[in-house]
């Protein structure tokens, strides 16, 4: 298995690198479709107080005086060597801006992921094992409801209730533990829905499998069954999904951070969009792609080790959504 696994791992890693580079190129192309020229427009804004010499210097740094294709390769070259350029808005290195914003977003996304998983497990467990028909039926419709409420509405309601009425936290200190919890809740609700759905579906499927019947006949309690047999295999596709969910958390952070006034990657994007700060946008999107691809790669490399049923050859042939399929 090791030889075959090694080749598989190497192939997947190589593909991951290619996808990251292509994501950078795609973003570059999308941004350069821009009518007008955001970089020089911003530079010539008199409020920035840049002299003509300085403008020329920056233009030369970004190679804006060259053809688009050459600009692309220059830009890609800088990206590969870790140079993310400078923000047009604040003139600070983009890497520094990202570094400053990252901890806040990580705290938010991490908490949200945890909450989403907890919600999903609670909903799935309840839907599977609560007595009667009404309660499980209602629980099964919860994910659908969660998916129907816009993120910004959830945020506005939570802030109104818990910050302004119940004084559980204050917007003045958006990085406090409680404020982070509610921001994470905003983000977690829509994200937990698909997770719960897939857990429910997997539980439905697995509980029909024979080994569960056998175990049940041995007289194990439901809860222990749930824990011992079901969760682990059910979690496997969920692991693959985490990669997608990480991407969703980053995307959802734009709205959530804006509403809660957090200084994270999301607000960085929001500000960059309004001020057409191209280097920042380019860097954030590339970073998101890197995170996605790396998490995905990890999931793909770990899955075959978790469950012997997923040998590399079978794993490679999988067409599960969300998993990058080697050709």
């Amino acid at each position, binding site marked *: 298995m090791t030889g075959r696994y090694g080749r598989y791992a190497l192939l997947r890693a190589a*593909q991951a690198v*290619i*996808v*990251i580079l*292509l*994501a950078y190129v*795609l*973003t570059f192309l*999308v*941004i350069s*479709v*821009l*009518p007008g020229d955001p970089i020089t427009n911003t530079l010539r804004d008199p409020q920035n107080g840049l002299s003509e010499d300085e403008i020329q210097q920056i233009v030369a740094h970004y190679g804006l005086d060259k053809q688009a294709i050459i600009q692309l390769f220059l830009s890609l070259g800088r990206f590969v060597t870790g140079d993310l350029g400078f923000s047009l808005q604040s003139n600070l290195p983009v890497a520094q801006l990202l570094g400053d914003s990252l901890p806040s977003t990580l705290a938010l996304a991490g908490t949200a992921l945890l909450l989403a998983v907890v919600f999903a497990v609670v909903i799935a467990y309840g839907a599977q094992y609560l007595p009667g028909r009404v309660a499980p039926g209602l629980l099964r419709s919860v994910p*659908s*409801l969660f*998916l*129907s*409420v*816009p*993120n*910004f*509405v959830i945020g*506005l309601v939570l802030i109104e209730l818990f910050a302004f009425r119940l004084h559980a936290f204050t917007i003045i200190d958006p990085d406090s533990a409680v404020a982070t919890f509610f921001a994470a809740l905003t983000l977690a609700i*829509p*994200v937990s*829905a*698909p997770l719960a*759905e*897939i857990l429910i*579906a*997997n539980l439905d499927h697995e509980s029909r499998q024979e080994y569960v019947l056998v175990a049940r006949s041995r007289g194990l309690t439901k809860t222990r069954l749930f824990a011992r047999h079901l969760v682990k295999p059910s979690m496997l596709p969920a692991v693959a*999904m985490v990669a*997608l*969910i990480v*991407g*969703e958390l*980053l*995307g*959802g952070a*734009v*709205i959530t951070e804006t509403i809660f006034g957090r200084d994270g990657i999301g607000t960085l*994007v*929001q500000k960059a*969009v309004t001020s*057409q700060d191209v280097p920042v*946008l380019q860097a*954030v*999107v590339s970073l*998101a*792609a890197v995170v*996605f*691809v790396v998490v*995905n790669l990890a999931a793909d490399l770990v899955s075959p080790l978790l469950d012997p049923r997923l040998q590399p050859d079978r794993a490679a042939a999988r*067409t*599960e*959504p*969300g998993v*990058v*399929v080697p*050709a």
Partner: protein
Amino acid sequence: MTANLALLRPTGIPRAVRRAATGVPPTVLLAALVLVGVLLWSVAPGVFTSFDPVTGNTAEKLLAPSAAHWFGTDYLGRDLFARVVYGTASSVTSALVAVLIGLVLGSAIGLASGFLRGWVDTVLGRVVDVLLAIPGFLLAVVIVSSLGFQTINAAIATGVSAIAVFARLMRAETLRARGSVFVEASYLQGGNRLHALLRHVLPNAYRSVVALAVLQFGTSILVIASLAFLGYGDPPPASDWGLLVASGKAYATAPWLVYAPALVIVATVLSVNRISNWMRKAK
């Protein structure tokens, strides 16, 4: 909330609507009614309200909901219900445009990948990987900021970020059909092969594609509302639902300016999701 989440739906996206209309649950009927209502709003808003969505009676500003003004009035005395109804066209039609873009481009990519295999599949597969690698909402934000802040651009952005989902599904369906088709059509020449493939793929695929499209419709409404909320859609006096919520939240003493459009969004998307769920389960 964004396009990619649709990928996470279980059961590899439904075999579909086999036992179609037998025993439709009441909630599905209700959902269908809501959707028909919303679609009518977008087609013929004038039938549902006699108020002008753009010019109001400034003497009647910030009135609470009443028999005359179902959703109250806004800060310029405009009837909020009229604004919601007239905003439906851009909020809902643009979601349809988004789904159409995702559906057409995504299906074409998926079909080409699955049918031609080889290097085409490899190349298109990477393109789809890349589209998947960028979080859908982030991609939409970047595209719309590149094209300019307009609702139609928000729709295009949302559509592009949904291409990958459709491509994935279509490729899988094509591959599934391919095996049997090529046995049957092995004696045929290229063009006929494609013809035979289409004959097999499309009837099978369209059910799952339709179910995905319905689902995407719901998420697209949310994505476009979110973009409008951030101010990336048409500027005022347009009345996209997300924009209504965003401009209404400045008026704390007139909470209906936020909750009326918010409830309309929730009711619409909930209905779409209910129908999508039912389609998936009605095998």
